[in-house]
């Protein structure tokens, strides 16, 4: 159903890239009246051939490019790449470097979830939330600018640790930002989560059962909202997540409202993780020697998955000597959500529910196309 054909009484309608409620993504819908019969996604607007391009560059250069894999949430991409190179070579990062990079990753997770609220507000018609969310993001982007030097593309985490040390006095600014964020969460609750219009548009819409979610490959908050307890930070802890005490947030309804509520509760847990870790940063080195990661082993292979804001982000790296990797495979969380879960959920629904379903899955095409 790639071409547009008129097949009465069904009508084809593109949910295309030139549409205010979709972004860099095209889907062709077959409608009967107001009901969607079938939805066929057509990705590829952001396909850059990342995995092939990484075979021409060494790990230090790759670390500066890999945060373009998921643009609203750049830190887990860099963290997963750094840890998989460290596992291939066999040398871990020093402890201070691990603390600094986990703190920045959790700040990035809060940033990504706040961005998702803003976009969801824009799509459902409650534009106040968008303006408030974009103003709140500025607090965390300012911390990114002071610590790493870049606002949206930090290029901070590298194999061996982090590139720069924390400047003096930044811990106080981080804790103030966390207090501010906790205060603002009450405003989001009033305006968004207790709003009866939003509840009517999002409750019992796009219900995903646990068995279907696992069979289609859903991960992250989309899976946890259906009742499955799967969080890689707790199940397979990496870096210093074992030192922090936090709960895994699940819900039981599996509809669009539960998925967004899971993300709002995860912001509160991330604030608690940052507060615990900022008090315990040890002294010492923040980066291992650069020369250790230049020569890759002859028969190296490693596989590592980390918990990004959207789900399970996996890297599989194979090396055959030299300075560049032989093959890198990236598993983006959005790939399964948009190409397998979204067509499954969109069958038989009214067309006005499509934006609520699509954006509650939190899909970013950069992850899907790579």
């Amino acid at each position, binding site marked *: 159903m790639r071409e547009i054909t008129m097949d009465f009484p069904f009508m084809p309608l593109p949910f295309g890239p030139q549409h205010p409620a979709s972004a860099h993504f095209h889907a062709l819908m077959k409608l009967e009246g107001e009901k969607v019969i079938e939805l066929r996604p057509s990705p590829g607007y952001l396909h850059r051939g990342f995995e*092939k391009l990484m075979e021409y560059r060494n790990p230090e250069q790759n670390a500066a490019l890999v945060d373009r894999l998921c643009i609203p949430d750049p830190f887990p991409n860099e963290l997963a790449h750094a840890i998989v190179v460290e596992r291939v070579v066999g040398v871990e990062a020093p402890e201070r470097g691990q603390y600094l990079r986990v703190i920045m990753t959790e700040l990035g997770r809060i940033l990504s979830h706040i961005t998702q609220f803003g976009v969801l507000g824009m799509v459902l018609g409650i534009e106040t939330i968008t303006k408030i969310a974009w103003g709140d993001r500025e607090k965390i982007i300012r911390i990114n600018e002071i610590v790493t030097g870049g606002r949206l593309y930090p290029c901070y985490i590298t194999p061996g640790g982090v590139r720069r040390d924390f400047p003096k006095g930044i811990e106080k600014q981080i804790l103030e930002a966390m207090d501010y964020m906790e205060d603002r969460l009450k405003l989001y609750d009033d305006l968004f989560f207790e709003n009866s219009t939003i509840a009517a548009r999002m409750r019992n819409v796009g219900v995903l059962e646990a068995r279907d979610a696992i069979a289609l490959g859903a991960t992250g908050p989309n899976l946890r909202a259906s009742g499955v307890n799967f969080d890689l930070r707790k199940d*397979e802890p990496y870096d210093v997540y074992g030192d922090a005490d936090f709960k895994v947030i699940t819900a039981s309804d599996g509809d669009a409202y539960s998925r967004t509520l899971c993300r709002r509760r995860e912001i509160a847990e991330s604030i608690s993780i940052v507060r615990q870790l900022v008090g315990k940063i040890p002294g010492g080195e923040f980066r291992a020697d650069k020369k250790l990661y230049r020569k890759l082993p002859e028969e190296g292979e490693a596989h590592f998955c980390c918990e990004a804001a959207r789900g399970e982000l996996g890297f599989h790296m194979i090396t055959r000597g030299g300075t560049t990797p032989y093959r890198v495979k990236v598993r983006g969380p959005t790939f399964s959500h948009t*190409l397998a879960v979204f067509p499954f959920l969109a069958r038989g629904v009214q067309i006005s529910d499509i934006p609520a379903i699509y954006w509650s899955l939190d899909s970013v095409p950069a992850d899907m196309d790579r």
Partner: protein
Amino acid sequence: MTYSDYAKDTMSFLTGNFTSSVNEMGLKGNTITLKANQEHIHDILHALKVQQGFNHLSDVTCVDYIDESEFEVIYHLRSHAAKIRCNVKVRIPRESAHIATISDIWPGAQVHERENHELFGIVFKGNPDLSPLFLEDWEEIPPFRKDFDTREYVKKELGEF
């Protein structure tokens, strides 16, 4: 039971039931790696899902070993209940690259196989839809193979860099 007990349970199940088809099994941390033969891969994966509880298919990876004239397909599985992972590797010849589909076991595998067919040229027999996913009107060889040079392609299409 700790996760290493679950893992050893799975490894003895596999050596017991599929003795001739699996070899080079190893356990590192919570991950089992093994190599399997192409003829029985569908039965092995079906048994891993239904009888050993590996219900989550994380990814399907392809690697092009052009010097040995083979492709390697790697299936990454995870069991949510036991919290262990299993990576199954299969080698297929490069000249006639085809393998049985697993989209009847995991419905989410259909899009992974569609992507690998477009980028490497491997045919997954039984997959309902193997049309192109990312690229439109592509006339060269599948682009992620090792004999496709991206820098030469850019010079040819877009002029000198």
